[in-house]
């Protein structure tokens, strides 16, 4: 059936970017500009939100340097205020910050004296690896569960959907601690301190992927079963297509749309979950940097991280749009 369908679709629309016209170019430009605006807006919101936090940043910096929690005399605070520019008017500080953004400078961390790009950079990659791997693993687990158990009789169906509902209800770090104790301490398959090695990433990935797989699975299963009831599926079967082929080639493609939409949102959930997984497994990552930065009122670092997360979203959404176009022929035509 798919061969027939592809033969009748005009060649040009199979590759939508084949001949970029002026209109497409303008569309892309608009997308880029709006993406930049979104990023700047996100960074600005963070910047001002942090200024709302009660207490003075200079106090937080001095306290953090000594591990204490006390007030400081104006004479002690003055050099700190001057060094970091806190004595300038707020609007000037904001404009300085945004100006720096456009020059590619995310500012300097208040507590580590290093550029924010350095602070984030080293730890960004492990987090991204963890997030991306978890998303992929979640998809694999969800699809496997659906393919194996959807519409295969009462018992298996129920088992599959129960498994999904169960895993979607698991708190992340509960899973993390349980997996750690069972598979790293008792049955020593995986290391306790995973670091960034591939083998040591398995448990953190599972910690994040299992609940997400349940969530994605639930959403997709509904669609999958509805699609399996469709007339064109029956047609394919009567034409001799095997059950596995039907599931893989047709049903899956039509049912993954809602889950693809959710994958964009899932990235955010994964980033939040990554903090927990990084904490439980002692993995370096953005999570710990973020928590520390908020705690120590390291404004440039927090804003920098928000910027990065927003950037990840923009890219993720672009990918989702592309995935949509690939998966749903109806969207391709438009």
């Amino acid at each position: 059936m798919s061969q027939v369908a592809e033969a009748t679709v005009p060649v040009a629309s199979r590759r939508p970017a084949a001949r970029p016209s002026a209109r497409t170019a303008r569309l892309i430009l608009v997308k880029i500009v709006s993406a930049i605006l979104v990023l700047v807006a996100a960074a600005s919101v963070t910047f001002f939100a942090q200024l709302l936090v009660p207490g003075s940043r200079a106090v937080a910096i001095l306290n953090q340097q000594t591990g204490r929690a006390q007030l400081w005399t104006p004479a002690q605070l003055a050099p700190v205020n001057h060094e970091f520019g806190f004595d300038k008017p707020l609007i000037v500080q904001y404009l300085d910050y945004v100006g720096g953004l456009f020059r590619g400078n995310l500012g300097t961390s208040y507590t580590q004296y290093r550029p924010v790009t350095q602070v984030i950079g080293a730890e960004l990659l492990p987090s991204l690896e963890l997030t991306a791997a978890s998303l992929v693993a979640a998809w694999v687990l969800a699809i496997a569960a659906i393919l194996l158990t959807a519409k295969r009789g009462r018992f298996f169906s129920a088992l599959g959907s129960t498994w999904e509902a169960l895993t979607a209800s698991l708190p992340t770090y509960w899973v993390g601690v349980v997996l750690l104790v069972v598979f790293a301490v008792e049955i020593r398959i995986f290391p306790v301190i995973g670091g960034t090695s591939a083998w040591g990433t398995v448990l953190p990935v599972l910690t994040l992927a299992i609940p997400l797989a349940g969530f994605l699975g639930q959403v997709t299963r509904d669609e999958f079963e509805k699609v399996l009831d469709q007339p064109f599926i029956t047609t394919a079967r009567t034409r001799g297509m095997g059950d596995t082929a039907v599931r893989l080639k047709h049903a899956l493609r039509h049912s993954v749309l809602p889950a693809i939409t959710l994958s964009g949102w899932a990235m955010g959930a994964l980033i939040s979950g990554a903090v927990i997984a990084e904490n439980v497994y002692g993995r370096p990552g953005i999570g710990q940097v973020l928590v520390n930065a908020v705690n120590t009122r390291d404004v440039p670092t927090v804003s920098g991280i928000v910027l990065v997360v927003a950037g990840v979203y923009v890219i993720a959404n672009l990918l989702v749009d592309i995935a949509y176009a690939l998966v749903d022929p109806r969207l391709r035509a438009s």
Partner: protein
Amino acid sequence: MSSISFPRAGALARLGSLRIPVRPGTAVPLLIVLLVTVAAIAPGVLTHRSPTAIDIEHTLLPPSLSHPFGTDDAGRDLYTRVVYGARESLGIGLGATGLAMSIALLLGFIAGLAGGLVDVVINRILEVAFAFPVLLLALLLIAIYGPSLTTEIVAVGIGSAPGYARMVRGQVLNVRKAAYVEAAAALGHRRHAVVRRHLFPNAMRPLVAMITLGVGQSIVWASGLAFLGLGVAPPSPEWGALLDYGREYITTSWWLEIMPGLVIVLVALSVTALGRTLQHRLEGAAR
């Protein structure tokens, strides 16, 4: 797809006449949700002890008949603490989801119906909102306002809203293009009547399950926040706080970590299951 048919308006309002048969598959989740509700409203019904009653003589006892979930390191009965924690945990779940859905409905409907520039602007706002995962929002809000039940509800609510808003908008767009809506408009039905009687119920129906899923997820999220030290103040026996506290005891007094975790899982599971049952019933009634 099926031929044109007019879905019954106000399907939600006719829930009472649907007569959901009480089978074991529905009964158990229903029972669990009822128990949790009772625990939230009148915990004294389910346990005669106090959640803060310390007993230094009987610390760290494993589960037994007199202490079904065991005791913690201050001798407090864990089962009682779980029962009393239901109010706050359920409160977070319902409050956060309610807030998220309110925002999502507002933004999603406006964007879906108005279209054009309004839609574009709202989409951009949602994209900015997406840059703030629940955790980050919680960190910032708690840094500003301090940890409390309200802050957690607001953080989880606002953090989940963009995702739901996207979905609502998608549904509205779908339904808007549906044949029966066009037909209703063609027949001259007034715009707000069309929205009220056709658009809204049909856009919302597939989301019923999402709402209940959301309640479960919010409860789970709140426990994650407690893990990072952003939970509510002690001696609150909120489930997330219990989970966070029980972590160190996992190899020596496992019940402190396992029991609250099981409760969270069971409650989230039951709420989700009920929601799906409800959705199936509604979809069945709509056809």
